[in-house]
């Protein structure tokens, strides 16, 4: 099986150092991290970490079983792209003088991106969406001069009523 994009979602204890443990494990086992997000959950004791990575099934299984051994990792699953919602936020600052503004705005509108800042020389555009949508928009916007940009990395939730960590003890 070939390398492909994998999204791994985990519930971890909200302790100091938990992110270091996970990133240290990925580093020493040679697993890639393409993006990583850490966020609060509805339970103050738990955080959710979402990692996008590359690998075949053997690598994915190793990621899941090695991560699952960490004491502070309560649940870890591979997120099925078909059965989940994945979102990312992009902020991109484009060089745009008065003459260019309308074309940038036009591209943004087609992608349902919003212009959130405007200066004499530049515009900042915000876009939320699937990683592939962000990639598509970036391909278009890169025709202009990008001054700086920032992507948050993927956050993901499974569709339907299943809840990761539902079975966790109180």
């Amino acid at each position: 099986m070939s390398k492909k994009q994998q999204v791994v979602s985990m519930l971890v204890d909200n302790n100091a150092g938990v992110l270091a443990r996970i990133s240290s494990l990925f580093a020493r086992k040679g697993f890639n991290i393409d993006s990583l997000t850490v966020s609060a959950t509805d339970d103050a004791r738990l955080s959710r970490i979402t990692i996008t990575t590359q690998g075949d099934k053997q690598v994915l299984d190793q990621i899941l079983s090695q991560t699952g051994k960490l004491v502070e990792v309560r649940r870890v699953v591979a997120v099925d792209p078909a059965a989940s919602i994945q979102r990312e936020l992009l902020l991109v600052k484009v060089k745009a003088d008065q003459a260019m503004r309308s074309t940038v705005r036009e591209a943004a509108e087609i992608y349902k991106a919003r212009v959130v800042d405007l200066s004499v020389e530049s515009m900042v555009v915000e876009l939320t969406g699937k990683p592939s949508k962000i990639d598509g928009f970036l391909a278009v916007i890169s025709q202009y001069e990008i001054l700086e940009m920032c992507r948050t990395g993927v956050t993901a939730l499974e569709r339907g009523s299943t809840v990761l960590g539902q079975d966790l003890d109180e």
Partner: protein
Amino acid sequence: MRIRGADVITEVLIEQGVDTVFGYPGGAVLEIYDALYKHRGEITHHITAHEQGAAHAADGFARATGKTGVVIATSGPGATNLVTGIATAYMDSVPMVAITGNVGSGLIGKDSFQEVYTMGITMPITKHNYMVQRAEDIAPTLREAFRIAGSGRKGPVLVDITKDATINECDYLPQPGFVEEKAPPENDEAVWEVLNYMGRSRRPLICFGGGVIASGANDTLYALMHKAQIPAVHSIMGTGVLSWDDPLNIGLVGMHGFATGNRAIDAADLVLAIGFRFSDRVALNVGRWAPNAKIVQIDIDPSEVNKNVHIDHAVVGDIDLVLKKLLPMLEATGHEAWLDEINAWRRDDYHPADSRTELKPHQVIKTLAEMAGPDAVLVTDVGQHQMWAAQYCRRVKPRSFLTSGGLGTMGFGYGAAIGAKVGVGERRVVHITGDGCFHMNMNEVCTAVTYNLPVITVILNNSVLGMVRQWQHSFYEDRFSSTTLDRVTDYVKVAEGFGATGYRAKTPDEFADAMEKALLAEGPVWIECLIDRNEQVLPMIPAGGTLDDMILE
């Protein structure tokens, strides 16, 4: 009851059944040592020459007894000196709890005297680690540390405690100590499927490793292999699980295993890997390892499945529980043709010739093993002597051959032998080392002298770093870069200087004489054995190689 944090530490140690600890005092652990002083009737603390020695001692104690070893060190350099010892225990899944002091919580992060981020340093070499900054968190954290160290796949856990947490008072309620609950197999179907694989096999082979010892499954494994007449090979970590002269024990495999074991792996149609992690020193070429076999794995750790070698079927669970489920369901069968084939190969195995006049390393190992007796615990360092010891140690029971298999830590032996001796009491402990390894941590002889521990150290002195030299001979056209030591250390005098006894042997007779005297001694003894620097560990399959690449001369 309200007591100081340091007293909570000793109370929890006593709760957990700990009566022996190893360590080294210092500023950040003064309170802990004060509590140890108060409880010196219940907990015996052994101070070593160096924190590394203390960590190896706790490890050797754990390997020899099966109990969780405990080591204590101060902040900063005390903690960093433990690192090699903790990593050694981690790689061989040895249960250990390391307690380190740290500076007061108000001084954390201020580059205070003897401050280091122990958590960060030890994160990748522990099963888990903690930093405790409040007295009331000490008891639950330490209890959790013992639970984690001693359950599932065992390993070291570190608890770093700030000085103020050891000084402050908190409530303490005693609790019963941790008792391991073994994990049953995840599902029985997976266990029955193993029977199907076994039923279809004509040339089955068991490959086992240290997991069998960790699970205490040696008797069950013995019963299973004898009921079904399945031969077995083992990694260095599995040494002693089966008696060396058991006809079904084909012995050591891997880089320096006997040819027969490696041939059996090549010829097998089924490999049952039991507590065996397919290290690169055994599965030298993962693509061509056991090329004709289905591989069935039994292991406590799910992350070992498909880690290095593709597995056809796996059962995750405690090895002893899995084998106990299999045993009654297994048909008593024979594999006569297969066993005959293997036994025919065994007659061709390479064994070096004995000598009457000069000391041959394999002969030294055989003699010391025989003279120390089947009950003795042999502890090695790392290198050629370790491999000769693994090949010729002739052990008959588990936990009687202690070696740093995973990390390959030179300098492991003396500390580990001291810990083992403290753990096994009257039983003999023989430390087998080389002149390279022994120079790393020979200072621990002061510990053996202080506690009057009759550990016998046999030094195979070839005046070179033999294993590296052997690789330089085989693969670097005899460019002996930095491996010709030719040190003039007088081991007899050094031993005497430390208050121990030293002997030197140049012939088999001299060695037997020295060994006889050493066995009667009340304190530590060294025996320096002068061997030829061109001795090689054979056979050898180079890294990444297969049976076809085996070196025999």
